[in-house]
């Protein structure tokens, strides 16, 4: 990416959301504490996303996609576990949606 053309630097900033901080925290725990994965694997996983990931995904969306892929590749979690857990969380979120307004 270095040296490519690009537009003016957008200096807008946002405060990191809790879920983004959690992705960051998980990555730190997985690399520094558990040593289950490395920063290089995070990088490799991001590079392996489709080219439009840079346009369509935010920074920490790319991180969690890469972390998840790495954990699947390493056999730390399985695709079935992930699918049923995500379905359960989505169902719960929908059940609570009217209250959350």
């Amino acid at each position, binding site marked *: *990416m*270095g040296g*490519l*053309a*690009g537009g*003016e*630097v*957008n*200096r*807008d*900033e*946002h405060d*990191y*959301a*809790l*879920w983004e*901080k*959690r992705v*960051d*925290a*998980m990555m*730190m*725990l997985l690399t520094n*504490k*558990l040593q*289950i994965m490395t*920063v*290089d694997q995070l*990088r490799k996983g*991001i590079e392996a996303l489709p080219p*439009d*990931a*840079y*346009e*369509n*995904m*935010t*920074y*920490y*969306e790319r991180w969690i*996609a890469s*972390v*998840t*892929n790495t*954990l699947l590749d390493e056999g*730390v*979690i399985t*695709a*079935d*576990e*992930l*699918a*049923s*857990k*995500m*379905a*359960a969380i989505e169902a*719960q*979120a929908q059940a609570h949606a009217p209250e*959350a307004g």
Partner: protein
Amino acid sequence: MSGPSDTHDHGHHHDHHHDHDHMHPYDPDHHHPHREDQDDTMTYYKVMESAVRELLIEKGLITPEQVHRQIEHMDSRTPANGARIVARAWVDPDFKKRLIETPKEAIAEIGHDIGPMHLIVLENTPEVHNVVVCTLCSCYPRWILGLPPDWYKSRAYRSRVVREPRTVLREFGTEIADNREVLVHDSTADMRYFVLPMRPEGTEGMSEEDLAAMVGRDAMIGVVEAGAGGTGQLAAE
């Protein structure tokens, strides 16, 4: 895992089985182009984060307390830490020498542990202005300054600052004289850079604390000069 105690813990069970027999974490149908990250709406990747975190907790690899402590730890890292290092270097030439020669040890004197990270301190002078980027991703001296600003991770900054640094700096309101060299430093996962800005003129006799208040985050990345204002100035935070 479907015991009665589950309801007390999280309230979700595992009987909501999904049809997907294969799950790929990148799903273009679920992309969300908006930059805003709202905590009150559930997105595909937020669901993925919760799912992975809960699986890691269930497997006993991490605990909720560890995640919480890690977040608190990162939140405690702010540019104020870097500003104190800069102010100390401005008032104490011996410290400055140590900061440049053995940054890890010198920063430990102020009470910050930068961990296994290698750090190079880049001193701005009347002859040289330094600016830091990570063209590959977003490597940043986070153990001193906290998490990087969005623009540091942006495609525009990363692609252009190595090719036309003076133009990019101008967008930050920083004009570097033609006779002053601009050096751009590209960070890596193992090597981080920290800019030691020049002490502004007319600050003789100011206290270390008042000097630190003049040093914003962006001055330590090198896109502005200390005391020049700009985003990340402590007084504005």
